[in-house]
């Protein structure tokens, strides 16, 4: 599978304050976004996610290194014509309607009026805004604005969508809807790169993931390779006679009662085999067997803690 976006050894610094001192925001960042993938970009607030996205969309220039979109430098017009971008806070001219916004950004993308006119009904129906195309944006809810934002990002048929915190500030239903929309867009064959600091959002829809901490990429790759890390544990729930005897069974590393029976955690494949064999011998009713894998959240938290310890040691 080819890559559509490559960040190669990027450093980025900007000047701030009265004396215009240089502040390094990104340090030796490298990552590649494979074609047709949903790429989740994780990081805490202030980690450098938006700065990297600005480099990817050609809004800023890296101090060192390169950002390539389909092999073109991100700042070139060709690269920018292939990217659809939704900023973190999608503020548009609030006197415009959804249709007006799409006409505006379509024209800026180089589309003719006829092309824009033809595309608008289709794109509004994809994002579920066809009923509100003539509503001024000042009267739209945050979820509606987010949908308009995604629509403007897609108006010119970009080959990669870069969404900066597309689910921030939304209620649970809004988050779910945007998540479903991203999955739908990905199913149509688009490459989607989106940043978030909410790990379950990334975990649920991404197939590639990278996380950034204090301007450095801490990990990058297929989500499965991260989730497979750590010891394999399995939760086995069962009910039946002689429940008391199971608390003494050595394979369980923890066990507790619930309303239906017992729930125990077993480590390793061998342990699972033994417990299941024994349960079947005893004619217990097995309620569920669920593998417990290390979540991205665990990995992320672990990595953050490790870095904090390293910083503390250095001090």
């Amino acid at each position, binding site marked *: 599978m080819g890559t559509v976006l490559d960040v190669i050894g990027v450093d980025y610094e900007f000047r701030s304050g009265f004396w215009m001192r240089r502040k390094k925001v990104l340090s030796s960042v490298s990552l590649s976004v494979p074609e047709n993938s949903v790429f989740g970009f994780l990081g805490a607030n202030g980690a450098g996610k938006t700065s990297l996205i*600005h480099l990817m969309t050609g*809004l800023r220039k890296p101090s060192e290194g390169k950002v390539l979109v389909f092999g073109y430098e991100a700042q070139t*017009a060709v690269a920018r014509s292939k990217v659809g971008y939704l900023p973190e806070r*999608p503020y548009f001219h609030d006197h415009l309607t959804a249709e007006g916004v799409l006409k505006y950004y379509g*024209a*800026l*993308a180089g589309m003719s009026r006829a092309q824009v006119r033809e595309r608008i009904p289709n794109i509004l129906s994809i994002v579920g805004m066809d009923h509100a195309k003539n509503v001024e944006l000042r009267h739209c809810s945050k979820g509606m604005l987010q949908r308009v934002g995604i629509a*403007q990002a897609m108006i010119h048929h970009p080959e990669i969508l870069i969404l900066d915190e597309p689910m921030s500030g939304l209620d649970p239903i809004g988050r779910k809807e945007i998540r479903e929309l991203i999955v739908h867009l990905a199913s149509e064959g688009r490459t989607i790169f989106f940043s978030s600091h909410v790990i379950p959002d990334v975990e649920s829809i991404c197939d590639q993931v990278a996380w950034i901490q204090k301007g450095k990429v801490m990990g990058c790759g297929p989500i499965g390779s991260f989730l497979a890390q750590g010891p394999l544990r399995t939760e086995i729930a069962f009910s039946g006679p002689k429940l008391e005897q199971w608390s003494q069974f050595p394979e369980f590393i923890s066990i507790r009662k619930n309303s239906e029976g017992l729930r125990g955690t077993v480590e390793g494949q061998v342990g699972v085999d033994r417990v299941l064999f024994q349960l079947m011998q005893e004619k217990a009713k097995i309620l569920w067997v669920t593998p417990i894998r290390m979540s991205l959240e665990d990995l992320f938290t672990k990595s953050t803690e490790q870095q904090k310890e390293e910083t503390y040691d250095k001090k």
Partner: protein
Amino acid sequence: MIKNERWFHSPSTVSVARAIGKVTFSEVIRDKILYNVILCAFVLFFMGFFASRLNFLHPERIVLDFGLLTVNLSCSMIAILIGAGLIPKEFERRTIYVALSRPISKQQFVFGKFVGLMLVLVLNWCLQCLSYLVLLSLSSETLVSGFSWTLTWALFFVLIQSMMLGCIAILFSTFTTTSLSIVFTLGFYLIGNSISQLRLLGTRLQSGMGRAVMEGAAAVLPNFEHFNLGYKVTYGLPLERSLVGLSTLYGFFVIALCLALAGLLIRRREI
């Protein structure tokens, strides 16, 4: 799979200017500043009209002079107050982010904003000129005696001058805040209307250095005196064709220069 219809070509400057200009125009005509300035202009128009009623000798001269001053002030204030806020507002509200993520340059963006401002200025200018002419016709016999080619060119020059001021305000706003841009442009407006006074001051200065500074400033700063035909309009004096042509060319040169400089400065500005 998605259909890969592609628009690899960058949009032309004309289509970018049209799109940005249209959005800017529709945004500015909702701005309260615009209506406040227009309201003030109408108040001034009527003050001039009533002042002319108190004069027995040449009431038409008062209407002519006061009216032209009102059109001038209204157009200039709109250019300065609105022009200075166009670019900073885009940064503050972050609407510039999405626009510049499209295959357009920052210079095209600035030009588009200027086109939007120009449309507003033309609209306001038409409205003010119409009110002015109605007022002239209301002051009996004055429309016939007051209306002349000099007045037509004077009104045209007001429009050119307001466009120049709009460009200067946009230029300042590319590297400083809205309020400072307003202050700087107002300064340029006041000095630009007193260039001959600046030259006179230079000749009266003892120090050679001071004289050189005054002369340099008079040469470099935009000279709005070229566009001030108030005296000629009031007294119905004729206008030389060469002055009209040269002043118009000068106005367009300043506009082009300011836009080019604004484009250069915004290229360097960090988003």
